[in-house]
């Protein structure tokens, strides 16, 4: 929003300035994908979806659908022969020879209205030959399981992913360090457990919407709510044989992403359907039911983990196997399995590790990136085992973690040195906030009260070369336009980038605007808005672009004054000399330059600053051992403590307090970090009670907001306490790194640990529910 120029905030980095997009959003003027207007030529698409979890397609008859008045085209897999994918190119646009999950698109209908498209979709007749499906990832990983991808060996794959053709294993990451077999006998305590998590869904309040226009000159545009316009462009261009320069992806504001709008799911269907009706834009909207099963989900996991420590409480050995239920297509999922593999110790120093992380095809909706990218899934088991070990040797769980958690510079499981963090400070902050160690009474005699702790780590899971770029331009009045390819999903990226640009340039925060929407035609490249990487990576690019602009300005003014640019600086939009105290406002000169003496010519001109950032030091990891010089760019760490009560008569859990603390490097906007912590605590808590359900044929049972409940205003903890620590990252803007995902990673295991503290009952499987707690209490009482 344009604040009046009389309000200004100097040096905004580190200050809780108001969000740059709040005004638009509270007035209802912020435009999202479904709000864009396309005029009377807009047509509408609906997808025909498979009713079977696993089947061969024998025949598709579209004639009845095409015969309906108002139907303009029907597209099938025969029209889309090439797969798409980011790390593993395994997914068809429309199913070709077979379907692999209930809900897989087999055809797309384009019609003049949504109602006609929906009616016509019902008239597409598909003949199937049902095949045996498999839903459990451990079962699916066995050699005799039904094979979902006979052509796995033929798919293009990134060089750090290792699928096993002839099986349903799309990725196997191995971590071998030290000698676990020699270490077990040295352990005073060993705990082993199997932990199961179901698929859950992002449930953004904005369902996916994509509008695509394939014009008569073969210029293609896709308007969609996207976290990753450039990545989507890349995948779609390759799969539909569109030259990159002919495909434009535009993303207005995103109504919640959480990873679900990062890759490609339904968007490519819209483009393929637009190709069938060149010259007409086609809008494809997901119903809420389709949002649940037809976009993407978080993978399920079966984790089998064994950890041992000595009598003093030092961790000695871990053996772990992860079976991620990747769903029918594992394109993004393979990287989740990999990331879980190279982080499998959790934020602990364990000298002997044997880890195997598998991504496995199952006949269920497609697993893909979701907030945490494997970390919530693996910490669920790890953090409960750590509590169990602490109990076995008689040590306080917080003390156990302080002793064993990874510290700066220590060598972690892949052989790299831990980047700068302070996890102990995070543990201290949350334990203090919940009066850890103090037994506090429940609010009623039939209630039990307990406290639990969990810690976490996560690194951005990226290929080794993910780039960010930024451009800084001025208006005549010296207000600034910052162009980035990064997206604000609600996390506050635009605000943080504006703060960084303003501080670097020396102008007030209120003078900076972000050039929205993100548009591959005009915005500079950004790999993706995922991995909690934007503050760090795009922040570096924005800072570089602003420094570039500043350098140009100082050179021009220095020349004008006959001074050295090093003696000049910019403050509050005015260039000044430290030497002479002369001043030159930016207004005007950032476009027109400055006249020389006696108007004998001019110096300067329109200022454009450009910058980019790409890490250059990430290395590959050995396939057999997972060892390598530098697995990741950095880790962010954090802790959560939960104080809760359980009603033993109903099993209902009431969360009294969630206390969180994260090491963010540098808080560019402290209050925005607090809002991430608050939202993350509720999202993490909610995720412990969520789970997609299917019948024995793989049909979804709860793809709606009544049967799949997410936390409402009535469900939130009585108190959410948030804090942060600032141990600077080596190469971030003012030392900043991300925290957007981390805030929901440890919540579920912290709740589980608190339940054990309250009830003496362990819950190894998600989702939790009042019913489960009640039944567990009944069982323990022997009834």
């Amino acid at each position, binding site marked *: 929003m344009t604040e009046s120029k009389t309000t200004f905030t100097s040096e905004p980095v580190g200050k809780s300035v108001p969000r740059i997009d*709040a005004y638009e959003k509270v*007035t209802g003027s912020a435009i999202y994908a479904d709000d864009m207007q396309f005029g009377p030529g807009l047509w509408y698409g609906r997808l025909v979806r498979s009713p079977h979890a696993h089947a061969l397609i024998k025949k598709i008859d579209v004639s009845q659908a095409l015969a309906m008045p108002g139907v303009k085209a029907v597209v099938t897999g025969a029209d889309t022969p090439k797969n798409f994918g980011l790390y593993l190119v395994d997914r068809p646009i429309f199913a070709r020879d077979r379907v692999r999950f209930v809900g897989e698109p087999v055809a797309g209908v384009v019609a003049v209205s949504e109602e006609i498209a929906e009616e016509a979709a019902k008239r597409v007749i598909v003949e199937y030959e049902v095949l045996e499906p498999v839903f459990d990832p451990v079962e699916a990983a066995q050699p005799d399981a039904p094979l979902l991808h006979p052509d796995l060996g033929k798919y293009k794959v990134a060089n750090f992913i290792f699928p096993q053709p002839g099986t349903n294993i799309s990725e196997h990451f191995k971590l071998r360090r030290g000698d676990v077999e020699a270490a077990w006998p040295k352990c005073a305590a060993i705990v082993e457990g199997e932990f199961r998590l179901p698929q859950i869904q992002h449930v953004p309040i904005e369902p996916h919407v994509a509008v695509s226009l394939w014009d008569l000159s073969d210029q293609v545009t896709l308007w969609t709510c996207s976290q990753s316009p450039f990545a989507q462009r890349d995948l779609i261009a390759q799969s539909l044989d569109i030259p990159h320069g002919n495909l434009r992806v535009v993303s207005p504001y995103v109504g919640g992403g959480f990873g679900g709008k990062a890759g490609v799911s339904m968007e490519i269907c819209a483009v393929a359907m637009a190709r069938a009706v060149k010259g007409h834009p086609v809008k494809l909207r997901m119903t809420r039911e389709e949002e649940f099963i037809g976009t993407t989900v978080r993978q399920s996991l079966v984790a089998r983990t064994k950890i041992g420590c000595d009598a003093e409480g030092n961790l000695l050995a871990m053996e772990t196997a992860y079976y991620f239920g990747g769903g029918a297509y594992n394109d993004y999922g393979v990287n989740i399995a990999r990331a879980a593999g190279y982080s499998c110790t959790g934020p602990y120093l364990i000298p002997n590790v044997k880890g195997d992380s598998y991504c496995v095809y199952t006949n269920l909706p497609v697993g893909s990136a979701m907030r945490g990218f494997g970390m919530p899934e693996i910490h669920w088991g790890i953090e409960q085992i750590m509590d169990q070990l602490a109990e076995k040797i008689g040590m306080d769980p917080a003390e156990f973690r302080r002793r064993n958690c990874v510290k700066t510079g220590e060598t972690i499981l892949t052989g790299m040195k831990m980047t700068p963090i302070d996890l102990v400070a995070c543990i201290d902050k949350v334990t203090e906030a919940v009066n850890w160690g103090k037994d506090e009474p429940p609010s009623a005699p039939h209630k039990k009260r307990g406290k639990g702790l969990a810690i976490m780590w996560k690194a951005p899971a990226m290929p080794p070369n993910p780039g960010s770029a930024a451009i800084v331009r001025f208006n005549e009045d010296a207000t600034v336009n910052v162009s980035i390819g990064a997206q604000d999903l609600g996390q506050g990226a635009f605000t943080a980038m504006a703060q960084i640009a303003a501080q670097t340039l020396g102008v007030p925060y209120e003078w900076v605007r972000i050039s929205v929407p993100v548009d591959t035609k005009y915005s500079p490249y950004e790999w993706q808005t995922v991995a909690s990487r934007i503050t760090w990576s795009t922040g570096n690019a924005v800072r570089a672009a602003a420094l570039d602009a500043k350098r140009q300005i100082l050179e021009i003014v220095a020349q004008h004054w006959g001074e050295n640019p090093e003696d000049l600086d910019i403050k509050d939009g005015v260039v000044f000399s430290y030497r002479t105290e002369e001043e030159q406002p930016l207004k005007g000169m950032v476009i027109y330059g400055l006249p020389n003496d006696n108007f004998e010519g001019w110096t300067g001109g329109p200022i454009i600053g450009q910058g980019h950032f790409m890490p250059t030091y990430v290395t590959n990891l050995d396939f057999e051992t997972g060892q390598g010089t530098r697995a990741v760019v950095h880790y962010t760490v954090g802790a959560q403590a939960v104080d809760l009560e359980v009603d033993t008569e109903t099993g209902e859990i009431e969360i009294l307090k969630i206390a969180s603390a994260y090491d963010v490097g540098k808080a560019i906007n402290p209050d925005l970090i607090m809002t991430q912590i608050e939202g993350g605590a509720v999202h993490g808590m909610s995720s412990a009670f969520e789970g997609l359900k299917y019948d024995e044929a793989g049909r979804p049972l709860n793809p709606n907001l009544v049967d799949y409940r997410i936390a409402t*205003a009535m469900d*939130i903890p009585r108190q959410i306490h948030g804090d942060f620590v600032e141990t600077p990252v080596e190469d971030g803007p003012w030392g900043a790194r991300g925290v957007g995902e981390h805030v929901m990673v440890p919540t579920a295991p912290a709740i589980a640990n608190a339940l054990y503290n309250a009830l003496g009952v362990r819950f190894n499987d998600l989702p939790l529910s009042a019913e489960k707690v009640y039944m567990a209490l009944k069982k323990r009482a022997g009834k």
Partner: protein
Amino acid sequence: MTTHTITVTVNGAKERLDVPSNMTLLKMLREKLALTGVKNGCEAGECGACTVLLDGEPVNSCMVLAVETDGHEILTVEGLAPEGELSPLQQAFIEHNAVQCGYCTPGMLMSATALLQRNPHPTETEIKEALVGNLCRCTGYVRIIKAIQSVAEQGAAS
């Protein structure tokens, strides 16, 4: 499908519209009047993103037929700030960082507006009850509740 001509007052302006029998109020607002501040989150009355005020009462506009609004008054988020001056609730949402992705925000503002109109000094529980039908995935509701409390404390209804 029969078309009906209705007269409905939307954000203070009388509108005469031709609507099919089965058109929802949500579709009428978004497609006939281009009031895209009213959001579509589920079209099943489950998320509250489409909340508008019908004669002052909060309703899920996806669950109301357009024809039902003939002769009635509708207030949407676009009607909260006539002539550009933000309502106290809108101002409070900005000040308290009660907005992240913003998609639930219009619905939240309408439910909150109705709440403070009928109950100018709600307790925290009353606020949470009034918002239970408005889902948010980003904020954890904390700041939304705080923003509404701050307006209630000021004694100003929107």
